[in-house]
């Protein structure tokens, strides 16, 4: 625990050493970020034109790569998303929670916080009408958008270990594609394409819709391969519909 906190502190000091402006945060985590900034005087500056890769370089010109790898995977896309507003990653918000907990002599694991959030979401999912196009349906994709990579990893873990049923996995795959969290879209796309080979038709359906939500024409050939093997009519029709969309995107 102590080591992890020291690690976070080192990361944050690494950024603050670049002598940049004070934070103004436009996210729902405003209060927590401000509190964190009070602690560490977290500062950075990002040009609106910067890509996530450039932001990463700005943040860590001289740092130990392995030390900052996790941090950069989450902070860069967030900074990119907010376009020059200052933000802090989930990882650090969680570590801030950890710090609070640590100071209160209570031990909490950061992964556990994300797990708890996800469990809460799943119980909401179970208790509401899960009709497509309902607000409840979008809760998981909004959560992924807010929490970034740790959420994606947890979700993939739930799917791989089949910790939930096929119906829910199908919706999780749709949510995985349906988020504006663009940083890791290639990884998510690759994952969804793999799920097209799943033995469950419901899961294959979720993967198809997830892919359509990412809307990358690079998936056309993979879906064509899928069509050669697929026997279930609704899935064949849906796959054709997705190809139609991706072709239209290609022409845009």
């Amino acid at each position: 625990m102590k080591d992890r906190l020291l690690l976070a502190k080192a990361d944050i000091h690494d950024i603050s050493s670049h002598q940049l402006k004070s934070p103004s945060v436009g996210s729902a985590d405003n209060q927590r970020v401000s509190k964190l900034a009070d602690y560490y005087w977290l500062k950075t500056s990002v040009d609106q034109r910067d890509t996530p890769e450039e932001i990463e370089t700005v943040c860590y010109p001289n740092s130990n790569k392995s030390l900052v790898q996790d941090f950069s995977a989450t902070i860069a896309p967030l900074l990119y998303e907010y376009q020059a507003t200052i933000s802090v990653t989930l990882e650090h918000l969680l570590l801030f929670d950890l710090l609070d907990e640590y100071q209160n002599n209570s031990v909490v694991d950061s992964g556990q916080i994300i797990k708890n959030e996800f469990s809460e979401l799943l119980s909401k999912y179970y208790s509401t009408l899960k009709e497509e196009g309902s607000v409840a349906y979008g809760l998981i994709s909004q959560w992924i958008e807010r929490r970034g990579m740790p959420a994606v990893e947890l979700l993939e873990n739930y799917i791989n270990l089949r910790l939930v049923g096929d119906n829910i996995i199908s919706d999780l795959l749709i949510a995985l594609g349906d988020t504006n969290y663009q940083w890791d879209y290639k990884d998510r796309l690759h994952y969804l394409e793999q799920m097209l080979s799943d033995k469950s038709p419901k899961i294959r359906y979720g993967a198809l819709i997830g892919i359509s939500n990412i809307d990358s024409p690079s998936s056309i050939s993979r879906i064509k391969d899928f069509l050669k093997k697929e026997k279930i009519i609704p899935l064949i029709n849906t796959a054709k519909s997705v190809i139609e969309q991706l072709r239209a995107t290609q022409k845009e």
Partner: protein
Amino acid sequence: MLLKRSKQMSYLLRNVRVKRWSFKSRREYFPADPLADLNTTQNNLSCFYIDDKKSNLEDIIAGLASNKQRLSHFGYILIDLQVIKNNRFKINKTEIGTTPCLKANARHVNIEELTAKKLINFAKLAHTSPDINTKTKKQVKQLLLKAAKCGNLDTSKMWESLKKELGFAQNPTSR
């Protein structure tokens, strides 16, 4: 039970979750999940009429999608109207639809006097349809924007959350 296509086909459309219908039916096996897409009110099942060339299919999908809280993909089944009639389902066209799309509302029909047994038969018939399909979220968005542009949508009846996603102006009087 298999659908036979007649020369001049018109259809009934029912909004469904396609994943529930994505299975291979076997002689003695039909899963219960698809029935969740066939909720009845006073033993009536709400459907929409699609003409033989499917020229109004996009209007109907836009109408039903405009009734949702959020933008999403849209699953549907088209069932041959003649097959419905041949299987003695009673169809009533008098009750108009309640979507924000007037064009779609005019094409609303009810399948009436359903019993549990008839509903299961209907589900089995519907599952044999070759037209169980999905419009992707992006395609639905395009249909909604097109319908709005043509003046087919009463945006005051749409959810604010959906209008926001479509980039429509906020209307304080709407839901």
